[in-house]
């Protein structure tokens, strides 16, 4: 937020404090004025795009919970954080301003127990109804209270072996029962029409474990709701309990289809916080792999999306190409899917011998493959009938629902962090942002197809650049004290060994402060908000999931349509449960 805007806001709202930290601009507002200020920011100052809302728990403070709203102004490309203290554990609901805030508020209620006044249906977001705890509160242990006895059935049936076949604790945290789940389901939807249909959670078409409820009148959907949390693994809680570098592999497992893009978003944020410079070679390697991963991810979307609509061939073809990319990644990172390839301050390994040749072969081959997909689908009459004019998203809704990524761009909003807040080497590369016109399922399909072409362009430029760089160029920042030294140095150099030893045992020493940074993932903006009170663990690490917000528009889009459309629609929003649930 620039100075002029801040002054105007200050003029309107006398008791708003404007705080400028190194990476953010925070507006501190009193609880009563919050809704008014947000409305002002949205309608008068152009902060239309809702990015995220979350809370932080300060057990020592009297008010205890602090709410944080992150907004974005698409006209001037600025972000602002609005902060307010809850009063008696309550915050006003802002779902009237931004409908997607409904989900963020549910989540904050679920995790912190903050009550939102005026919320239409304040329910547990991830845990089930009747779960008695609020996990992200500071006094809640990461493992949860060990309350029930759950022995290993394999051992019970086969008898205990000596030594035991595996090592496990007898006590376990609370497990849901079917009654709990039924209660959860009933609390979500008041039946208005004929029949409530459950779709999911364990259904192949739901792309993981999303649980949909459709209230049906004949075949058309009158109202619907989405129950999430069938893959809620407590990532944010884990992050608070481990060092910064240790959390990196966990980011792989969020949006597991685009692991390297997640890592890039995460290391980018942490590097900002720690003030780490990244060498040029590492930036190019990162960019190249992130774009390969983007192609990889879009291929999975293409394959499964088409499979859901009955096109099995595309699935098999797309997976053929995916294997090629995975081989490239495996050759460099040593792992196919959850690669953990990047490091804070660089990348883990230098490029493996011959990587660039393989990538070049891929670049040469891939356009032909893309043509194959286009031949199969783009003018296919069935495909057109299933996708055209379905689920049209307007430009306003992009901002109101906090959409990002290809979903936003298909509606004509050129919101792409690679251009707006360039990270890695994106500002030195030449590429275009494809946007759609109508914003229907078909447009989202076309946008993603074109994005693969653009990614290929980026990869090509990266290869050209990397070929020119000398082999000895550093791929990790060796000077910074918080960056681990590369493996080959550790074994040769005592100082580096000591440095690594210190980081592994004590973690990186982060300065106090806060930072929000995002990365442009194949599924939209993946943002990390880190609140640090010095030390080597984040006090609070909030993950802003693009897929979650993209999914939040689903109930609106499906209203009045048939179930068959739900499948095409969900495929085009392309959520990944690992990221929506975290």
């Amino acid at each position, binding site marked *: 937020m620039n100075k002029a805007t801040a002054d105007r806001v200050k003029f309107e709202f006398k008791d708003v404090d404007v705080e400028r930290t190194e990476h953010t601009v925070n507006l501190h507002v009193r609880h009563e004025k919050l809704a008014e200020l947000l409305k002002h920011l949205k309608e008068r100052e152009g902060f239309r795009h809702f990015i995220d809302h979350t809370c932080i728990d300060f057990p020592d403070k009297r008010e205890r919970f602090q709410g944080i709203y992150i907004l974005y102004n698409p006209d001037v490309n600025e972000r602002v954080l609005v902060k307010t203290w809850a009063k008696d554990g309550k915050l006003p609901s802002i779902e009237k301003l931004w409908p997607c805030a409904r989900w963020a508020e549910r989540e904050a209620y679920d995790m912190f127990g903050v009550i939102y006044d005026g919320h239409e249906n304040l329910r547990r977001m*991830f*845990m*089930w109804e009747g779960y008695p*705890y609020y996990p992200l509160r500071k006094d*809640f*242990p*990461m*493992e*949860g*209270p060990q309350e029930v006895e*759950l022995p*290993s*059935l*394999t*051992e019970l*049936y086969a008898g205990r072996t000596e030594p035991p076949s*595996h090592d*496990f*604790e007898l006590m*376990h*945290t*609370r*497990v*849901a*029962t*079917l009654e*709990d*789940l039924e209660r959860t389901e009933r609390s979500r939807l008041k039946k208005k029409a004929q029949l409530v249909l459950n779709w999911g*959670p*364990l259904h*192949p078409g739901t792309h*993981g*474990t999303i649980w949909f409820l459709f209230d049906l009148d004949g075949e058309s959907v009158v109202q619907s709701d989405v129950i999430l*949390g*069938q*893959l*809620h*693994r*407590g990532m944010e*809680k*884990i992050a608070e309990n481990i060092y910064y570098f240790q959390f990196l*592999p*966990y980011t*792989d*497992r969020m949006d*597991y*289809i685009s692991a390297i893009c997640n890592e890039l978003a995460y290391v980018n944020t942490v590097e900002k916080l720690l003030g780490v410079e990244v060498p040029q070679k590492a930036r190019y390697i990162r960019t190249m792999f992130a774009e390969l991963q983007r192609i990889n991810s879009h291929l999975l979307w293409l394959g*499964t999306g088409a499979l859901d609509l009955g096109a099995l061939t595309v*699935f*098999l*073809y797309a*997976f*053929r190409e*995916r*294997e090629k990319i*995975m081989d490239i990644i495996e050759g460099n990172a040593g792992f*196919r*899917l*959850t690669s953990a390839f990047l490091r804070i301050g660089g990348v883990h390994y230098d490029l493996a011998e011959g990587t660039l040749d393989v990538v070049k072969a891929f670049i040469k081959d891939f356009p032909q493959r893309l043509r194959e997909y286009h031949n199969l689908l783009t003018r296919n009459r069935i495909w057109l009938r299933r996708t055209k004019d379905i689920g049209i998203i307007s430009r306003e809704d992009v901002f109101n629902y906090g959409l990002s990524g290809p979903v936003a761009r298909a509606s004509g909003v050129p919101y792409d962090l690679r251009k707006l807040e360039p990270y890695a080497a994106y500002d030195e590369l030449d590429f275009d942002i494809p946007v759609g016109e109508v914003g229907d399922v078909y447009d989202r399909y076309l946008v993603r197809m074109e994005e693969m072409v653009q990614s290929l362009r980026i990869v090509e430029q990266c290869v050209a650049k990397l070929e020119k760089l000398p082999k000895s160029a550093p791929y990790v920042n060796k000077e910074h004290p918080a960056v681990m030294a590369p493996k080959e140095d550790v074994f040769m150099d005592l100082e580096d060994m000591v440095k690594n030893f210190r980081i592994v045992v004590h973690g990186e020493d982060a300065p106090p402060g806060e930072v929000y940074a995002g990365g442009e993932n194949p599924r939209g903006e993946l943002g990390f908000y880190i609140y640090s009170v010095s030390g080597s663990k984040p006090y609070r690490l909030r993950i802003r999931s693009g897929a979650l917000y993209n999914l939040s528009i689903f109930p609106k889009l499906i209203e009045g349509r048939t179930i068959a459309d739900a499948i095409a629609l969900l495929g085009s929003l392309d959520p990944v449960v*690992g990221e929506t649930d975290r």
Partner: protein
Amino acid sequence: MVNSNGFVLTTVDELLSWGRRNALWPLTIGLACCAIEMMHAAASRFDLDRLGVIFRASPRQADLLIVAGTVVNKVAPMLKLLWEQMPDPKWCITMGGCASAGGPFPTYSTLQGMDRIIPVDVYIPGCPPHPQGLIYGILQLQKKIKEKGVKKYDKAFNDFRKDIQRQGLIPREIEV
């Protein structure tokens, strides 16, 4: 089945086991990251169909449950329900660290191992295992079926009887 001794009863068992182990039909469930590798195992390059492994979308047609991904406490009862809907004989493979023992998530929301709710036949370590790993696991299961045969009926039947009696579906006096 004819062997050098003529017709022998045990060969029927052998025949059944042969049929079963070479047509393991798993249930199509993907829970998390491991499911992607499971899809890869089924897709063009690794082609699980070669082993007679064909994914079925209905538990009533499946006899193998591949738990691919993190099982959280909220999903556990649903998986158990699906498992109970599968007809006997049935087997369970846990794919990946999460399903086997909680993996990298020792948290309040994650089930620490699938074997807490379902007896598991083969555990495949990895995070995620390669598709080759999954194929190896399936081969191990085939070996296990071959060696141990299929002796699950008696126990399953007794369990079923106890279960319906407990639920009061039939009066206790009646012998099933």
